[in-house]
């Protein structure tokens, strides 16, 4: 990270910058709420995508294992929360009990996926994980008979919001003379968790485990020769990535109040993977930038593509959603052709380049 933050040489400047960012982040929801509450919700979803992208980054970016079924873990986490906190089974457990449970179950699924695929590499792994993701989705879709577990394609409704004693995240309150709406409450909660997750990721990357992953990614045989237990390390990557996904899924469930298998389709997996790739595989900040970019650009398009076409052509020729997907596909292709390392390339490459110039 050092290379990005040359400010580090001036600690005062660095602190001032951090304080500015903090103030901006705290003020952000109020500014957005003025434009429209929808934008606060969009921001919340963007933060959720950051969680997902960071979780997938552990698997793809750190350990170099391509996973195209990542959204399945998100789905597992979401369904665990939905089943344990909704009228579906009449259970209403508090969220601090369910989130770890969801993370744990997702983690088990991660290991279940990881164990048989340890020997596979590259594109084979991608397709097996893709198949795994589809299997989970098909099960979510069909586990409504003979015993109604997931309520099938109709999904689960009336999921409890987060609640701490009397303080519910779903209602609007007046605190200190300010109206605190539900999305804003969630925003602060998510922001706090995001900071924790980013710190965990940064610490992981520079830890013994992170370096082991890096070694496996660069050359698995050499890594094993250096005494790294590649099997355990790979499983650990799957497990950690999956549990991040599980936690994000639980929060998604609570925020939306409704989930169905529709939310956990392959396109979502690809979307998260693209966030990682576009942002810069292996670079925590790059991944966050990628996630934010791919969350906001489609929303901006949603509000611009239709009206612009109306104005220029007199009718809506291309649906904004289709346009978004077209751009997205194009971005993937062009990115790979012209800037394969992403918008913010990983620190490793930077470090290599610096080392070379210093010599």
């Amino acid at each position, binding site marked *: 990270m050092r290379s990005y933050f040359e400010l580090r040489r001036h600690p005062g400047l660095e602190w001032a910058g951090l304080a500015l960012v903090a103030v901006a982040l705290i003020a952000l929801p109020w500014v957005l709420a003025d434009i429209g509450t929808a934008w606060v919700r969009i921001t919340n979803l963007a933060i959720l995508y950051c969680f997902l992208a960071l979780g997938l980054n552990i698997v793809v970016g750190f350990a170099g294992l391509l996973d195209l079924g990542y959204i399945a873990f998100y789905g597992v986490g979401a369904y665990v929360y939905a089943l344990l906190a909704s009228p579906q089974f009449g259970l209403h457990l508090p969220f601090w009990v369910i989130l770890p449970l969801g993370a744990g179950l997702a983690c088990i699924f991660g290991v279940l996926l990881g164990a048989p695929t340890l*020997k596979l590499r590259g594109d*084979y792994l991608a*397709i097996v994980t893709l198949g795994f993701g589809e299997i989970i989705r098909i099960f979510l879709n069909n586990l409504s*008979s003979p015993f109604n577990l997931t309520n099938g394609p109709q999904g689960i409704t009336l999921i409890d919001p987060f609640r701490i004693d009397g303080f519910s995240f779903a209602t609007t309150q007046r605190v200190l003379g300010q109206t605190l709406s539900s999305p804003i409450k969630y925003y602060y909660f998510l922001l706090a968790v995001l900071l924790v997750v980013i710190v965990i990721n940064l610490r992981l990357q520079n830890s013994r485990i992170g370096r082991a992953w890096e070694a496996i990614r660069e050359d698995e045989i050499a890594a094993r020769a250096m005494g790294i237990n590649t099997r355990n390390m790979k499983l650990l990557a799957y497990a950690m990535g999956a549990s991040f996904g599980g936690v994000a899924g639980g929060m998604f469930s609570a925020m939306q109040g409704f989930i169905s298998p529709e939310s956990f389709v*392959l396109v979502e997996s690809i979307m998260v993977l693209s966030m990682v790739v576009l942002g810069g595989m292996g670079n925590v900040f790059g991944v966050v930038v990628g996630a934010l970019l791919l969350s906001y650009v489609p929303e901006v398009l949603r509000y611009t593509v239709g009206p612009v076409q109306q104005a220029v052509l007199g009718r809506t020729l291309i649906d904004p959603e289709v346009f978004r997907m*077209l751009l997205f596909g194009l971005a993937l292709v062009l990115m790979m052709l012209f800037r394969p390392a992403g918008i913010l390339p990983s620190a490793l490459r930077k470090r290599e380049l610096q080392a070379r110039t210093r010599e």
Partner: protein
Amino acid sequence: MAQRPDNRGAEPTAPIVDTLIQQLVNGITLGSVYAIVALGYTMVYGIIQLINFAHGEVVMIGAMVAYTVIAALVGAHLPLPPLAILVIATLCAIPACMAVGFTMERVAYRPLRRAPRLAPLITAIGLSIILQNLALIIWSRSPLPYPQIIDTVSYHLTPHANGATITNVQVGIICLSIVMMGALLLLVYRTKLGIAMRAVAQNSQVAGLMGIDINRVISLTFVIGSGLAAVAGVMDGTYYGVAHYQMGFILGLKAFSAAVLGGIGNLGGAMLGGLLLGVIEALGAGYVGDLTNLCHLSGWSSSLAQRCADDPHLAVFGSNYQDVFAFIVLILVLVFRPSGLLGERVADRA
């Protein structure tokens, strides 16, 4: 065991053997289509060790183009026999798909031939998304119904009145697949181009030194695979009677599973894998409902027996799990025999 009321009414039920034969016929038909698509995957993999993720979309484009031509010809009321319409439609779909395949290789894969493996995979996903959404814009979001120009004729395979049958469409699909596979084998093993393809597959550098234009051979491989995909698209559209802009994705995945099952990079393997996968899927979808029917356990629990009295088909897994089988086969093959049935070991190289 509880009494199982026959809910099929007065209609005489087909004997078990007939049901089995029927599933096999359906499975082989489906498998022929898979095999043709799988050939496209396996040819490309054999030559440049790349999984062309967007191959399924080429099949979709083939089905869509053929739909447009058929609909136009039917709408024009020309005095053409139905078979001629179908042939014309296929002949239009083939060059269209070949163009798509050629462009794909040129734009997205050739520049990345020396890049890390992740790169072409991601461009392939990008291409897949682009092709799907272009198809959505050009054609429609909803499934397009193929005009039913061919009168389906069923032939009885057994003497039972309600027994197994095979339709003329099924016969056509199976025969055409066999002809195409034969032609492809002839091309690869008996022509100069085939020798060049195999040479590039073995060692492209040395092949280049021998005066083979590697880029041309690779382009041609994509073009031939796409041509096969076009025919598969028309077959699929005619068989199921619909074309949809997302049809290529799942078909492509299954065909890929078939290619891996047979041993990727191996032409015979793709054919065998395709047929096997089709049969596995048909048998799985046909029998999993009966096999996992909880009513067999009615003797064990009275509440279960009660529910079974209302509905004798209390299956844990029904035919709605059909798509799962291909993936399970894929995962099992990759875990236990990554080289596939007929192939050499490749998973480590991948």
